[in-house]
């Protein structure tokens, strides 16, 4: 993925950039577009644009507004925090370089929150469902203890090379945003509802819906680990129950948008085969 350096576009450098942001003050309130303008500088990305917007806290018309809220962390595309929809495409805002965006659309940059997760405020969304899916597939190696028991099992280089890409999933949610089978679930807290009751309702709502490609891929990662596979049956039980692998419509959008180029559809195909075998085996074991 080679992109030309900023030097290549020096001739077309604008002095200002228009940034249109889809804002929302809180859950249940209507979203609205707002236009901001920031000074252009070389080597900008969407993060530095948002930093400028926060410092200005003024729209293009000079109206004082609250700074746009957004989520970010590492700024080098390994933490997954700053995922949003930029010019219609889901991606991390840190690696969205302004010079590239201006090439596609010199008029303005459009920022929207992801649409498959409840909006907390502006570009901040609640991705707890994504992490809950990792619980559903028991995405861990069930070791006996954390005492010193010597090294783990020897792993052939080939297996490591297959597993390492899957293990790079940073839970950003791009695959879920792009998946036609993954629908938004927004559970609204009742007045006076306790944390426990609210969590229980969220869990129920999440578990009745599609688990998502990221979790299927994690299930495959742990099923191929020599000790991780001790939970293989449990993971396949999950993948063959409500919201499991059968919900996948094979649109293959997930793999196309994954910023880490994780072979998600390969994982889904593997999971599909394993799930079929698992179902047949269960039939005979009855």
């Amino acid at each position, binding site marked *: 993925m080679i992109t030309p350096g900023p030097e290549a576009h020096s001739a077309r450098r604008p002095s200002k950039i228009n940034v249109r942001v889809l804002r929302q003050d809180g859950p249940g309130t209507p979203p609205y577009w707002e236009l901001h303008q920031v000074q252009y500088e070389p080597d900008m990305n969407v993060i530095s644009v948002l930093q400028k917007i926060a410092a200005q806290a003024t729209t293009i018309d000079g109206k004082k507004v609250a700074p746009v809220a957004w989520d970010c962390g590492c700024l080098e595309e390994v933490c997954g925090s700053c995922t949003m929809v930029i010019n219609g495409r889901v991606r991390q805002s840190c690696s969205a370089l302004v010079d590239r965006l201006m090439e596609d659309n010199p008029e303005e940059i459009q920022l929207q929150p992801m649409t498959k997760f409840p909006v907390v405020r502006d570009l901040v969304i609640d991705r707890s469902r994504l992490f809950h899916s*990792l619980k559903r597939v028991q995405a861990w190696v069930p070791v006996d203890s954390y005492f010193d028991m010597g090294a783990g099992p020897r792993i052939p280089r080939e297996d490591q090379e297959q597993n390492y890409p899957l293990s790079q999933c940073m839970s950003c949610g791009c695959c879920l945003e792009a998946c036609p089978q993954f629908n938004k679930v927004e559970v609204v807290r009742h007045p006076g509802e306790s944390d426990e009751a609210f969590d229980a309702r969220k869990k129920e709502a999440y578990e009745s819906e599609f688990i998502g490609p990221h979790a299927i891929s994690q299930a495959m990662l742990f099923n191929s680990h020599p000790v991780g596979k001790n939970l293989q049956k449990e993971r396949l039980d999950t993948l063959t129950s409500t919201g499991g692998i059968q919900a996948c419509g094979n649109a293959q959008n997930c793999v196309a948008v994954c910023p880490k180029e994780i072979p998600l559809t390969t994982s889904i195909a593997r999971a599909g085969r394993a799930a079929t075998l698992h179902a047949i085996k269960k039939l005979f074991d009855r």
Partner: protein
Amino acid sequence: MANNRVLVVGGGLAGLSATMKLAELGIPVDLLSLTPVKRSHSVCAQGGINSVNDQTRQQGDNEWNHFDDTIYGGDFLPNQPPVKEMAYWAPKVIDLMDRLGVTFNRTPEGYIDRRRFGGTLYKRTAFAGATTGQQLLYALDEQVRRWEVEGLVKKHEFWDFLGPVLDDNGRCVGGVAQDMVSMEIRTFPADAVVVATGGCGLIYGRSTMSVFCTGSAASRCFQAGAKYGNGEFIQVHPTAIPGADKLRLMSESARGEGGRVWVPRKPNDTRPPKQIPQSERYHFLEERFPKYGNLVPRDIATREIFNICVNEGLSVDPTRMCVYLDLTHIPRHELDRKLGGILEIYEKFQGVDPREEPMKIFPAVHYSMGGLWVDYEANGEGGLLPGSPRNQSTNIPGLYAIGECDYQYHGANRLGANSLLSCIFSGLFIGPGIVNWIKSNKAAADLPKSIYEGALSKHQARHKKLLSNASGTGENPYLLHQELGDIMTRAATVVRYNNQLTEAYEKVSAMNERAQRCSLADTGNWTNQNVIFTKSVQDMIPVAQCILKGALMRDESRGAHFKPDFCMPSLSATDPTERRHEAEKWCDAFEENTRKYLKSSICSWNGHEPDLTYEDVDTRLLKPRPRLYGLVGGEVIEEVWKQRTRNQQEAAPGRPASKELAGAS
């Protein structure tokens, strides 16, 4: 211990390893983090994690050597028992991470592959591509999720730690924190609080650190009475990609895998790098440090790169300062297998393929060796006593610090791939000590509610006061932060001068008052990032003061702290007798400097600024010796130094050589 709980603040490698170990020991944990723990800054660690291993062992390596390299690399500033314990635990830590499923790179036979890192001559570093921190963090995150399902861990993500709660005797009995979504402030009663909140790079504006690394949690503990140690020791990493929002790390592993740093010998050479013939390339690290080459410790590599650009005018780019980091001689498939992650970062952010073109890099603020002062209890062999509640305890009883936010393991300069180790080690090691602490104290759950109500109302008042500063006439917190970053970057990074430090200290101290007058653009009570950020900027200032004051008062050069006006010169005499004489004098000066400055600087907060005192360093295992990487005349100095050491040992025969004392265990 049904009634007991521990509050862990921070979900990076240190916080997560402490959490999972405590959960295994049966202690319920509240885990508080600014971000979903899986997104913590540990994900940015790239190169690897160090330990002695079967292969290096057979080349003469052992745990003692790892300990020695760490102490020598850290210029003898760390207390030795914790570092020794860490080096001896290192192989066990990697074994555990291996069992947890970390996808370490493998040799063709299936063993964990290793590479070489700075400050050592052995291949000690285990790695998972060039995203080792991410892979280690994920393995711990998975285990903690497992305990969450078991009901022993309760996560509080998107919560900001506001400070510890102390009872009337000064014991820490919990924390106060704020929900960054609903803005609710509440207390978390706990029998012990573990702060694992990482570094403070944001004090410098731009650094290699994530946006969470403000140091504000450590600062809040400091302002509540915890001591802060060795603040002036800030690691500037030699190789990073300059950027408008962040300086992105380019791992030392690039050099560990054979990457070479160079500039054209001719200043302002405009030819593209690949057209410059070998003979006209100045591989300045290799020429000046033949033993370690491109893998000299970080403080040294940083100064050399800085010097070559600033003083020798050999920067490879006329518009900004940088040097080449060249990987183009290494086969593509080898690069992809071992360094893929960092090469993608360069490609994505610079738009140039580093497999084809040398990268352009420059040093950047990277790591804080200093941090919250913590205690330890040594055992008879000079390591740590397992299970002692003193280990990793701050001077506030019941308040612990681990990971980058403590000052314990890296002294004046951290060796590459030792930070992941110190984080996981301190997190695992602390568990049994905390259990013993809890056993000997009254449960927090049984304490009077008034203690918590007092702490809560104090923080609520601070919050309300900030929200009421809405006039728009006060300071803009974002601009104030930029100003702080500029001052700190100019005065307290690679090269330090007393006049600049004095000026910076005055300016930053004046900011303390200005920061109280910040006016907010958002005065609402829903996901108000404006107010959270403003609080963190306010709390950056006391730590910035510790850094500046520590640097100002330390009139010497040690590790990352370099003052040209106070550094040990190279030898200049050419006549052997004179040179020997010069070396003798050099060693006298070194001994005098050690007596005067081999001390930890300890800051305590007096309500307005830090008070600075000094504490002796525990050198029970290794006698401080000159750090001579690349120094002209180093071989003569070493000779003189060895002779002196022999003489001293003969004069005091009762004391065994330190190596035999502890290396035998």
